[in-house]
Each structure stands twice: as C-alpha cells, then as structure tokens.
C-alpha cells in the first residue's frame, strides 16, 4: 500500500529513493537555448515553403493590399487552376495572370520522361561498371577506375559546351535523346557510390554460386543486384532528384516547347510576366507543383536520403 502512493511515502519505494538523493536538476539554460536555436533554424527552413503555399492560394489582385497578411489574401484556387490549364485566358487575366498559359502538363510529362529514363539507365549501367570495378579481376582495373574518378574533377560547364556542339551535330537538339544521352550511361559518382558497396559484400555466396557453375551474368543478376537493393534505391532517389532539378543542360539543348522540362518551363513562365505586374500567385502555384514530386518522394523515403548524405557528400 505504501509503495502505491510514492508521493507521500516516497522513501520506502526504492525507485523513489534514488531521486531523493539526487540533487534536483536546475532548469538547464544551455539546453533550452540550444533547442531554441534548433527551432529557429527549422522555422527559417520551413516558413518560406508555407509562404509559397499561402501566396499560391491568394488572389493576385489582393496580394498588393494584404502583403503582410499571414493567411491567403482573398483565398482562391485560381492560381492552381491557371497553372494546370483549367482556366480560360480571359479568366486568368481577370485574376491577374498574364494570360500566357504555362503548358504545365506537357512540361511535367517531359520531366517525368527525362528523369525516369536517366535514373534507370544511369543506375543500371553504373551498377554494371561498379561490378566490373569491384568483383571482377582484370589487368588495368585500378587505372581505368582512377581515370573515371578523375573526371569527377571536370566542372560540368567545361564538358557542356563540347557536348552541346556534339548533340547539335548529331541533329539531336530539342529532342529527348539530346537531353538524356550525356547522363544515360554513367556518372563517376554513381559508379564510385556502388563500387564502395559492392566491395563490402561477402564473397562466399558468390563463390558458392561459381562452384555450382553459375555464369558471371547470372551471379550479377541473381545475387549481386538483389543484395544491393538498398544502395541501388538510394542512388536511384539521389539521381532522380538531381535530374528532376537539373536546369543548365535542358536549358541548352531542350529549349523547344515540345521537350521543355519543368525547371526550364518555370524560368520561361517567370520571364513571361511583364515587369509591372508579375503573376505571383500563378508563379508560386507552379513552383509548388513542380516541387511536389520531390516533396512526396522525400516524405516517403526521407530517412534513406538523409542517412545517405553523410556518405554521398564526402566522396
């Protein structure tokens, strides 16, 4: 009975005695200060995204009068409708849009095609190369790998100009092939990333399969790839994010409406707005929708991405 009411007879309960003899912890100012800083950092990081949403849900005409209002000014879905092409040009102009429609669905389609093909190709071909660099023995292996790695140092702008000329000479300007090809087969980073993982895999299963007479191809497809599912998925995510967000290369070779990806489309949409009255609501709605796939993937697989950063950044 006494133990059930420790608040009164605390000394009899062993768990309680420990607390009684421990000096009462004073309020920890350092810790509270540190947490305050963490919260400030989170607010600084998240708030702009909320502001993006708030603007997208506002009506353009009311933005000027309510610039400091935290809630949407004159709530309206108009901006989203406008971006998704569900508004007639007249309606758009009435809502403060420029009337110049953003061909959102088409750009979205281009972005999906480009990002998916590059991700699948790059991860698959890089994994094949990584397998050759880690599990197969052949003369010159380390030298060739060093050469691959060295190209990590070459800045993208440096290869972009000659690559542009080559794509142009091949007649592939403003085609999906032109946007995709330079990234389809490999990046030094992808090979390096997977090689590190393959090196750490145990040889035993592989050797057992070899004694059973399995070919290298069989081993690669049936043993190595399934065992590397986690790093392959992480690399695929990082590649997809990178390609989805790429601006420079599609700007060079994919300017045409027919193959324009979202990032390039957003840039064009922004410059279409006359200097006097930019369609801020429409622009923010468009940027928000363009960011959506990344946000969804990140919410679904965030942990994988976050945990891989320590590795991927420090090459």
């Amino acid at each position, binding site marked *: 009975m006494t133990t059930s009411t420790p608040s009164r007879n605390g000394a009899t309960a062993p768990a309680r005695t420990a607390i009684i003899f421990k000096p009462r912890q004073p309020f920890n100012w350092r810790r509270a200060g540190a947490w305050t800083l963490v919260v400030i950092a989170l607010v600084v990081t998240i708030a702009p995204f909320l502001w993006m949403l708030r603007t997208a849900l506002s009506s353009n005409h009311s933005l000027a009068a309510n610039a400091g209002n935290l809630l949407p000014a004159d709530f309206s879905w108009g901006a989203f409708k406008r971006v998704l092409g569900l508004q007639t040009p007249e309606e758009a102009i009435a809502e403060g849009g420029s009337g110049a429609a953003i061909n959102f669905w088409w750009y979205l389609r281009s972005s999906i095609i480009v990002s998916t093909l590059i991700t699948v190709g790059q991860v698959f071909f890089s994994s094949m190369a990584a397998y050759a660099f880690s599990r197969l023995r052949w003369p010159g292996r380390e030298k060739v790998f060093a050469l*691959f790695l060295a190209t990590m140092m070459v800045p993208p702008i440096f290869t972009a*100009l*000659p690559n542009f000329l080559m794509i142009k000479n091949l007649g592939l300007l403003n085609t999906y092939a032109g946007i995709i090809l330079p990234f389809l087969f490999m990046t030094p980073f992808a090979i390096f990333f997977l090689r590190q993982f393959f090196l750490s895999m145990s040889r035993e299963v592989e050797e057992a399969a070899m004694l059973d007479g399995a070919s290298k191809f069989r081993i690669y497809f049936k043993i190595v790839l399934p065992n590397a599912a986690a790093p392959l998925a992480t690399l695929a995510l990082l590649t997809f994010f990178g390609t989805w967000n790429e601006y420079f290369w599609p700007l060079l070779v994919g300017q045409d409406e027919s193959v324009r990806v979202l990032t390039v489309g957003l840039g064009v949409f*922004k410059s279409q707005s006359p200097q006097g009255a930019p369609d801020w609501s429409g622009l923010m709605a468009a940027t928000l929708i363009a960011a959506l796939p990344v946000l969804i993937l990140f919410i679904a697989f965030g942990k994988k991405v976050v945990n891989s950063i*320590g590795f991927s*950044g420090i090459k």
Partner: protein
Amino acid sequence: MTTLTKQQRDPAGRAAGTKAGKTGSTRKQSLTHRMGDLRIAMVFIFPAMIGFVAFFLIPTIRGVYLSFTEYSILGDPTWIGIKNYTAIFADELFWNAMSVTLQYVALNIGFQTVIALGLALLMHRVAKSTFVRGALLLPFLVANVIVALLWFWMLDYQLGIVNEVISWLGGQRIAFFGSEQWAIPTIAFVNVWRHMGYTALLLFAGLQSIPSHVYEVASLDGASPTRTFWSITMPLLRPVMVLVLVVTVIGSFQVFDTVAVTTAGGPINASRVIQMYIYQKAFTESDFGYASALSVILFVILALVAFVQMKFLKGNESDLD
C-alpha cells in the same frame, strides 16, 4: 579459387610439374590468371565506357582544343593559338566576372560554413532526430530554380514579405535583386539558405565519427566547452571540414541557376558570375572558342583551389591516427 591459382604460380608448384607437356598448360593458366575476368569485365563496363568516352573524355579534349580556336558555331573552328587567352586577360568583363564570382564565393562559403557548423553542433548535442535533419535538408532537395523563384518573390521590392517586415520595423525597403550593391549578397544569401542544412549534415557525419572517449577524457580534465571545441572538436573535424570546403567552394564557383532565373547577370554587370559570362559568350554571342577558353581558365582555377585547400589544410591527415 584465387588461392588455387596462386599455388599454381608458386615456383615450388611449377617445379613439381616440370615434366614434359606440363609447362605449356601452366603457362596458359598463368596467362588466363593474369587476364582474369577481362573479357567479361569488358562486357560489363561497355555501356559506361561509351558514356565516359563520348560525353566526358572526348568533350574534355575537344574543349581544350576549341579554346585555341575561333569558332562561331556556323563555320569550322580556325586555330588562332593563344589569342583567346591573351584577349581574356585584357577583357574587363572577365575581370569583373572574376571579382563578382570571388565576392559571391567568399560570402556564400563564409556564412554557410559558420551556420552549418553551428547547426551540426546543435544536431550532435541536442537534436539527432531524423525529422530535424530531414527538415533542414529540404531546401537542398528542391530545385535551384524553385528556390530562386521563391526568394525572388519573398524579396520583391514592392510586395515581398521581407520588405514588408523591414518597412513595418521602420526601415528602408531594399531592392535586393535590383541594386548593384545588393545583388550578389542576396544571391549568396539565397544559396546559403538552400545549402546550410546539407553542409550541416556533412559536418554532422564528421562529428559523429569523433570517438566519445576523447570527450570523456577532456571533461575529466575539466576542460570548458569552449576549450573542448577549439582543442578537440575542430582539430578532429579537420579532415571532414577540408573535404566539405573543397566540395562547397568548387560548387559555389559554378553558381548559375540562381543568377539565371533572378538577375540574369544584372543590374548592369553586378551579378554576372563567371559561369553566366561563359554561357552568354557561347549562346548569345555564339563565340564558342572564347567561351571554351574561359571554361579552361575556370577549370584551372577549380583544380588550383582544390589543390591548395588539400595542401594547406592537410586534408589527408587525421589527428586521430
């Protein structure tokens, strides 16, 4: 498998099988051993090799070649020796682009590193949760273009929330992207916001790798937190810090997207960074030879920066060993 072949190559093993006929097959086997999986490896590496040769190796060589030519995409490139380079050194716009880029790099890296280090320490000490790390990483995962447009709106002179707050506090509105003096600091700030969480995560990974017993010893000796930070954390974090600095400095030398979407290099030349200048030379003035020479110079600068950083900060050595 490997041990078997090694035994065959062993002089003792060979000596044992020196009877007629055996030598030939041993030699053959040692040749196959030396070649190893070469043929199968070639198959596996073939697609990557196509990509490497066609889009990395040849363009690199061609880029250097083009820098010695005059080439306006229409005709053929004509060899002009080092004329592009001598022209660049007399080019005021180039020196302007260099100085603008350097200002940007200094502001961006300075603030980013200090803020990221602070965040990394905070994460290490109080908030290790994946949620906090994930939230801080968010801006980095969103496209440069989106980040640029978002801040272009928030920093708008007329309606931007930042200027609203400034004027509410009684300050003067600032034309962040529109004034020569503010353009570069603003672009640097936007990219600090985008990258601080990412850089913090890299440094956080470095902090995690410092063994805890070092800190225990320090606290037994009665070292103050400040002392611990300067005498233990910073020196032990150095190898990671050097790598992070190399990666981020090289990245920030190549800033383009943010500039292209917001100021396009203006007002006047205030934010025309080196990559913007290369882009304009090649694609608006169609001067590919000159643009190639500019990118060779950028390449050399980046290689030097990496070399100097590794050398002076002794990135390869760890105080732990």
